[in-house]
């Protein structure tokens, strides 16, 4: 057939490409990240999740206030709360790393790719077009920021409520020495970052699972099962050789921040393992997603 009988339209090719120049690559990615964060932050379910995360330290503080904790139960911080309110967020982090915070990461990472595939918005994002690698980077970055949000939702209300109820008396470290308020706040900040890093590593696994399926709930449950399985394995002494390789085995190492001087080696190992998990599973997600047929 011939196209000669059709006059080429005025808009065909040459005329329109000129004004289209890529915005600075980084700026474009930032704009997408902003949109992603608004999407995550705007979801009612996620907002409710943050409230649940924030409720735990409040409950702990009130419970401690109206009862007398038994002494000598080890570094769960709960017994130390009465001396310094800043132990409230630390105790809450310890409690919530078991389930609530990993659950929050599961929900977010389930939404990340599988959620978009499920409602079909993934195909429209890709035809905008957004490069698949860029999309996966932005998605992961948003999960990391989501992890920070989750931790802050525990730490900030915990610190406020704790200080309001118990004040900021001298903070007694696990080594028995006392540190000032400034140092205590600094260590709390480091602990928050360390916990967020652990969640970010978990999110990389979540992102990988999310790229395998079109069912966000299935992806979320899978990550929750993996977390629970790691906790179970971590509790079985017969597989002690495996423990250093489990993410969750390092989750509570932030307690070392409360020693004097800070014992950093445990957290150092933790951070290395987190980094390894993040890289390996992000690459796995990329390998899966980059060439995947999008049929949703």
């Amino acid at each position, binding site marked *: 057939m011939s196209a000669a009988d059709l006059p080429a339209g*005025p808009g065909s090719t040459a005329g329109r490409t000129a004004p289209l120049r890529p915005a600075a690559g980084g700026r474009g990615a930032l704009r997408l990240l902003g949109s992603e964060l608004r999407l995550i932050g705007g979801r009612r379910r996620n907002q409710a999740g943050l409230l649940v995360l924030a409720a735990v330290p409040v409950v702990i503080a009130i419970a401690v206030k109206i009862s007398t904790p038994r002494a000598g139960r080890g570094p769960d911080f709960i017994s130390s709360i009465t001396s310094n309110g800043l132990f409230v967020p630390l105790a809450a982090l310890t409690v919530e790393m078991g389930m609530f915070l990993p659950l929050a990461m599961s929900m977010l990472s389930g939404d990340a790719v599988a959620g978009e595939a499920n409602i079909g918005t993934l195909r429209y994002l890709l035809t905008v077009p957004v490069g698949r690698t860029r999309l996966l980077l932005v998605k992961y970055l948003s999960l990391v920021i989501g992890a920070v949000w989750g931790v802050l939702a525990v730490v900030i209300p915990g610190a406020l409520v704790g200080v309001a109820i118990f004040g900021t008396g001298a903070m007694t470290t696990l080594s028995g020495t006392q540190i000032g308020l400034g140092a205590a706040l600094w260590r709390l900040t480091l602990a928050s970052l360390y916990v967020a890093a652990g969640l970010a590593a978990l999110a990389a696994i979540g992102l990988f699972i999310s790229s395998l399926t079109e069912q966000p709930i299935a992806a979320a449950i899978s990550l929750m099962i993996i977390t629970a399985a790691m906790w179970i394995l971590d509790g079985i002494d017969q597989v002690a050789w495996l423990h250093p390789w489990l993410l969750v085995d390092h989750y509570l190492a932030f307690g070392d921040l409360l020693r004097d001087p800070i014992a950093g080696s445990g957290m150092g190992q933790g951070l290395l393992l987190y980094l390894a998990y993040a890289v390996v599973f992000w690459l796995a997600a990329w390998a899966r997603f980059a060439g995947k047929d999008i049929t949703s």
Partner: protein
Amino acid sequence: MADLAVSTSGLTKRFGSYAAVDGIDLAVPSGSVYGFLGPNGSGKTTTIRMLLGLISPTSGRAEMLGRQVTGSSGSARSVLHRVGSLVEGPAFHPYLSGRANLARLDAADALADPRTSRTRIDAALDRVGLLPAATKRYRAYSLGMRQRLAIAAALLMPRDLLVLDEPTNGLDPQGTREVRGLIAALAADGTTVLVSSHLLAEVEQVCSHVGMMRAGRLVTQGPLDEVRRSGSATCRVETDDTDEAARVLRELGVTEVSVAGSRVAGIPGDLAPEKLVAALVHAGVGVRSFTVSGSSLEDLFVSLTGEGFDVSG
């Protein structure tokens, strides 16, 4: 080939042993409105997904706007900035408003200028008549409004090519007419439009070109008039002298001559009807009536793609 907005050669997609798209050579001229027709399941959407880089072809090549789009290079993808698309129905975040959904897509576009974002979004919404519902949540939209929002998304940026997969699905007759008007207006601006449909009638009026799919194969394509001419118009003669009429028609070159009762039917091809009548009368056949019919695209569509509800494959 430079004057083709979309061209494919031997484009094939297999899912297991089943060929959803089987070696098609699409040729969509620049500036045309190309009706991509075929029954449900004939491979139209799979073809469109391959063009847009959502799925990779098993074999064959595809070019859009002069750039090869098969293969996964970044430059292949960048041509999509000049292509607006609607693939297999609308899909948006249900709890965001129409405007917020478009803002999200605009934010994803690295070439979109954030300063003009709001203006472009509202212009696109206005173009599809959704501006009054811009702040409503997507989940509250009717199917027709959802379809319009998807079209608005394709119009966020200036496009050289629009790929619209079933754009009138779910629209009422009024909405269907509006979409047709929109396609015609866009084409008048010089945008090439590739519009797929399983409903011929809604496309026939705006298309300059058509291609018809059946069971993964492109059974015909070309300018609408050419395809229509190639359509098998049939002539029918009503007479008592059927044998003689059939003989005369065959001699003149009418094909597929058949006799049923007092009727003789055949496909005249390029033969002028008046010649046939003259020849019949000259041979002494008593012609009671003579009709030529079935040159509508509808008949061709049905004859090429099959009738009824069976899904191909």
